[in-house]
């Protein structure tokens, strides 16, 4: 009998899965959202989800796409490759027409195979590791600029500030390592010296020994390529040790939290950022609507998430059908789509046609555009 109870429990659990998996409405257009809503990156993921849902609301109020109302289904990738494949399979099994989302590159990477095999159009809103380009089967489109563009912006800034000796620090995950490696290659390729190339373990708080090591190499500029939480700590400890040179951070660190955690030590830190709401005149209406609906300010990747959803709707309209191949074709033919973060066109590799990176500087506890 115990066995029967267990079997029954197992059976009902499976039946539950089956039910959840197949409860689709036939007459609607269903879009899958893949973002991390749990785990360490949940904050960013929820912000993106909010922005996408806002876009969906606006689309539906304007009459939907091809006369169909848009519904959504969120798959939580938890920023973890294994969870991401389960989430992606769930979305594929739920008969969605297209996928929007993708924040962590490491978690997005294995899903490309799943979406690719299913032939689903996929607008990658935030994830931008260059490994995504190689693994893309042609159905995925990177709405964010890739690491290459960011490195160009970064190297330009360092050179303009007269830096000769560069130190690069990453965090031992796919995204920040990719950026760090590209920077090192580019800098060394220009004939200049990378004096330190270091890794910080995620979740460690004390970086003083690393700071001492870096300081002893006397770099003119330090580039932190990873996320804001540990970035704030690293910057604080660098300044505390007496380092006075230039510090710059990558787009993963573009958050007011970095300034909060790092305190006054972050004053004058540069940040390479995808265009986020605060610096976009076009995003005023979006910011107001977001604040109205969620009672909080939109975060760094919300505009890209919103644009990705709008782009997908636009592509389906242009394709004139929800047929996957047609939508992918329409996406690839996108020409200067007017997103709030800037115009969107794609290269032959399905990456964004132009670099959208801007340079910010921390002033008085706030990020402002650097000239």
């Amino acid at each position, binding site marked *: 009998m*115990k066995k029967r109870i267990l*079997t029954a429990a197992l059976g009902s659990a499976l039946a539950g899965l089956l039910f959840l*998996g197949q409860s689709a409405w036939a007459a609607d257009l269903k879009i899958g959202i893949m973002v991390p*809503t749990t785990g360490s990156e949940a904050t960013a993921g929820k912000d993106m989800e909010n922005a996408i849902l806002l876009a969906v609301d606006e689309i539906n109020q304007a009459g939907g796409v091809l006369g169909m109302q848009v519904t959504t289904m969120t798959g939580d990738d938890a920023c973890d490759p294994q969870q991401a494949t389960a989430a992606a399979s769930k979305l*594929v099994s739920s008969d969605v027409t297209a996928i929007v989302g993708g924040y962590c*590159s490491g978690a997005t*990477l*294995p899903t490309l195979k799943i979406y690719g095999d299913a032939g689903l159009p996929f607008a990658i809103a935030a994830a931008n590791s260059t490994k995504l380009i190689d693994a893309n089967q042609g159905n995925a489109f990177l709405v964010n600029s890739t690491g290459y563009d960011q490195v160009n912006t970064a190297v330009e800034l360092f050179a303009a500030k007269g830096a000769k000796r560069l130190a690069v620090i990453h965090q*031992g995950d*796919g995204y920040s390592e990719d950026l760090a490696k590209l920077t090192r290659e580019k800098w060394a390729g220009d004939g200049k010296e990378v004096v330190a190339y270091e890794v910080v373990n995620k979740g460690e708080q004390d970086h003083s020994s690393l700071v001492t090591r870096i300081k002893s190499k006397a770099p003119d500029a330090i580039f932190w390529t990873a996320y804001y939480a540990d970035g704030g700590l690293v910057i604080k400890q660098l300044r505390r040790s007496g380092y006075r040179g230039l510090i710059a951070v990558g787009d993963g660190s573009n958050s007011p939290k970095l300034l909060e955690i790092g305190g006054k030590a972050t004053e004058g830190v540069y940040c390479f950022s995808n265009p986020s709401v605060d610096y976009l005149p076009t995003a005023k209406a979006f910011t107001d609507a977001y604040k109205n609906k969620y009672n909080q300010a939109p975060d760094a990747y919300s505009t890209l998430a919103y644009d990705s959803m709008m782009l997908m709707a636009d592509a389906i309209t242009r394709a004139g059908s929800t047929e996957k191949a047609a939508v992918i074709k329409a996406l690839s033919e996108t020409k200067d789509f007017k997103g709030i973060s800037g115009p969107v066109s794609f290269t032959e590799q399905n990456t964004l046609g132009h670099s959208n990176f801007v340079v910010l500087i921390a002033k008085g506890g706030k990020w402002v555009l650097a000239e």
Partner: protein
Amino acid sequence: MAEQTQSPRGSKPIVQSVARWLAPQRNRIIVLAVLAVVAMVLPLAANNYMLEVLSNAWFYVVLCLGLNIVVGYAGLLDLGYAAFFAVGAYTTGILTSQFGVNFWLTIPVAVVCSMAAGIIIGGPTLRLRSDYLAIVTLGFGEIVRICARNLEITGGAGGLIGIERPHLFGLHLNQAIHFYYVFLALAVLACFCSYRLQHSRLGRAWQYVREDEDAAEAMGINRVGAKLYAYVIGAVFGGVAGCFFAAKMTAISPETFMFQQSVLILVGVVLGGMGKIPGVIIGAFALVLFPEVFREIGSMRMLVFAVVMLVIILYRPEGIWPAKRS
């Protein structure tokens, strides 16, 4: 530890009646046959998501059974089991994606590599008490992960991409349903091996060493050899599972092999019932299905999972379906 802990009041009669019903060989075979048919036929009614989740569950069955040999049979605490899984996955990943070796040829290499890893970890630890064993295995697991993160050949932190999916008798294993059957077959194989090992000479030696090391040695059992065998065999389970994991995911990165992964596998073994094959299978399934079933409640699901785990272990300290200890 010798006697079975009291079951909570009320569940005892149920347990006994089940045990009584399961006692004759015939009834056990019926149950097994029904389960086998369900496992074989289920994919025909399942969508891709279910297949993905279920193949993941079978995959964890293999890992948990492998760890069960170390923990359940030989009584050695291992907090770094993900290392063996990593060795297998990376062996296949590196050989197929960078040297173009056929997937099936990488399996023997992975077996050898994970055996070597088992000997390396087993060697220095055999003299240690169980709690020290915990930290050494943990440290070993971390060392393997950090090496995978830092080395060029393993693709660094970004890991390896573009691992080829294998062909089997001309069939390209490319769909969720293929991998369901692959992992089901692996799990059945793992069950069979575990069962045979448990009832072998070596299995009895493990039991003896687990219950009383000194007495076992006095009876002429090679204590060191038995422990080393447990590590090596457990490592092979993990390594082979890792090979297929790499093929299924097509991309692997060091994040998969963190300490939490080792803990998760250990939780599956202990929660299900150490040393009992059906118990371990239930544990592995609970591990995978629970978070999926509660996907809908969003960010609270891991909290709910943790609370449920705590309640289960408090009410059934020996696991859901514990082994009988004489």
